[in-house]
């Protein structure tokens, strides 16, 4: 997979602590698939040392650009905000195994929690293009962080928000919204990414209604390519050996994950 110095063509703050960055990275853009991630060096110094994994939020294969949506949570993501347009960003990717882009059936449901919405957007773009009907539920703390609304509209997906403060959509958890607003009979496949607790609830829902699907997991990473064995996690399926999120995932079968 390429290691590229992408030219940043857009970098903007999209809410209080969320940023969107687009850069030209033709090799990565040519190869990437929904659910894959890039491994980003946020600064040129020794601290923070390691790269940061960020999902591909969108890709424009014609332009050769990649877009990321990230939330500032610590030192690394904070430093990332300082890269300016016309500067370069050091990225490896695309890494990992992405989502199943040929799910059975016609109607797919995506459930994102917080910035976990990121990988679902590119997935929604690809699936609508392949004529799937896409419904996206997004749980956020408040209306300000429902930053993907425009993109989803232009993609042509249906969007149902839930906010903790009730400033938009359902007031409360996105999983309540799921129970209330979605008819499981109408769903052929589920994708989810977000906090473990949320994904656990979605996985239970999928199990109860016998709907197949996938989840995207997170784990601290060093190499991002399967060499260091650092990003290990136990799945139900594996007896003993732990999977490596960076290489075997980050996308896994919804039924196989232990939350």
């Amino acid at each position, binding site marked *: 997979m390429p290691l590229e110095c992408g030219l940043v063509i857009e970098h903007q703050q999209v809410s209080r602590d969320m940023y969107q960055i687009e850069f030209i990275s033709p090799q990565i853009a040519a190869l990437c698939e929904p659910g894959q991630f890039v491994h980003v060096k946020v600064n040129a110094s020794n601290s923070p040392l*390691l790269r940061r994994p960020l999902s591909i939020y969108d890709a424009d294969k014609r332009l050769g650009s990649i877009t990321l949506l990230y939330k500032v949570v610590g030192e690394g993501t904070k430093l990332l905000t300082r890269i300016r347009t016309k500067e370069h960003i050091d990225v490896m990717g695309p890494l990992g195994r992405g989502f199943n882009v040929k799910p059975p059936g016609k109607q797919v449901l995506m459930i994102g929690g917080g910035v976990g919405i990121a990988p679902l957007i590119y997935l929604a773009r690809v699936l609508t293009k392949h004529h799937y009907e896409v419904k996206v539920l997004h749980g956020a703390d408040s209306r300000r962080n429902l930053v993907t609304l425009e993109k989803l509209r232009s993609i042509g997906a249906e969007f149902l928000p839930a906010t903790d403060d009730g400033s938009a959509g359902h007031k409360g958890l996105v999983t309540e919204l799921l129970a209330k607003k979605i008819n499981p009979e109408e769903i052929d496949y589920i994708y989810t990414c977000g906090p473990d607790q949320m994904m656990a609830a979605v996985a239970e829902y999928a199990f109860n209604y016998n709907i197949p699907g996938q989840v995207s997991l997170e784990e*601290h990473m060093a*190499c*991002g*390519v*399967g*060499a*260091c064995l*650092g990003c290990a996690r136990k799945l139900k399926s594996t007896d003993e050996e*732990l999977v490596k999120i960076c290489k075997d995932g980050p996308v896994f079968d919804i039924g196989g994950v232990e939350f």
Partner: protein
Amino acid sequence: MSIMMGGTLMNKAGTSPVNIDLSVQLGPVKLPNPITVASGTFGYGTEYEDYLEINKIGAVIVKGTTLEPRTGNPPARIIETPAGMLNAIGLENPGIEVFLKKHLPHLKKNNINVILNIAGNCVDDYKKICSIADGHKEILAIELNISCPNVAKGGLQFGTDPDTVEQVVRAVKGETSIPIIPKLSPNVTDIVQIAEAAKAGGADAVSMINTLMGMAVDIKNRKPVLGNIFGGLSGPAIKPVALRMIYQVYKVVDIPILGGGGIMTYEDALEFIMVGATAISVGTGLFVNPRAPQDIIDGLSGYMIENDIVSLEEIRGAAVR
């Protein structure tokens, strides 16, 4: 840096460049260049194929291999620290048999120089692995991990007591004709004593340093971050300690040194060579820059041309007095 002129690199004076020779002799082991990749950071060599021409690397030190397969430690296995990281992988590996059957042939098919890294719970384990590996002449050398801080049995014990070090080295030397390079633990009071013991046991070279034992606390949950509590500290943070220990050993013990610990750039590599390392390894640096081995080879070449250095012998140990 050296200057490009009409396609040829020139030295400082602008006179015609010397014919540099990057090859090094690590005891009985001849390497085309001094850059190796450290055990446990490069898998079995396939993971970085997209970023590097792996057969251009001096040698690939494969991940720590044990007699039986191991599943390793529970997560979390890694955590970033200031200018470094902690790992507690716990020697996850498929075991020596699978390595020889599956990974070694693939590595050799691609003309990759292989150094096998092995770990065991007791002297007998080490002996068995070595006798199984013996005969595989494709293995350039065996790096003896007697310093892994992550496994409850074995691990630290071997690397911290001079007598045991001598004993385990002597034991494995009896099992194989493949050169033996014990990898020394830095978690000791007197590294020179350990290096002397390794030499006394018959080591062909020593590798240093392995990780420093450390830990991190998750203050939210009020518990250690790593599943194994303790982990090995690697990366630039430990470079000063690695340089000091290599200096101490080079000065006193007459044995070739494979040096590493925090190497990211060719300037770092030069520091290690100047305190006496014959070859060097890049580990954590790969995670930051997967092309680091090639970048370091290029950087060293440029440095040699610019400074009219034909062989690294000329600067090896230059800072030791």
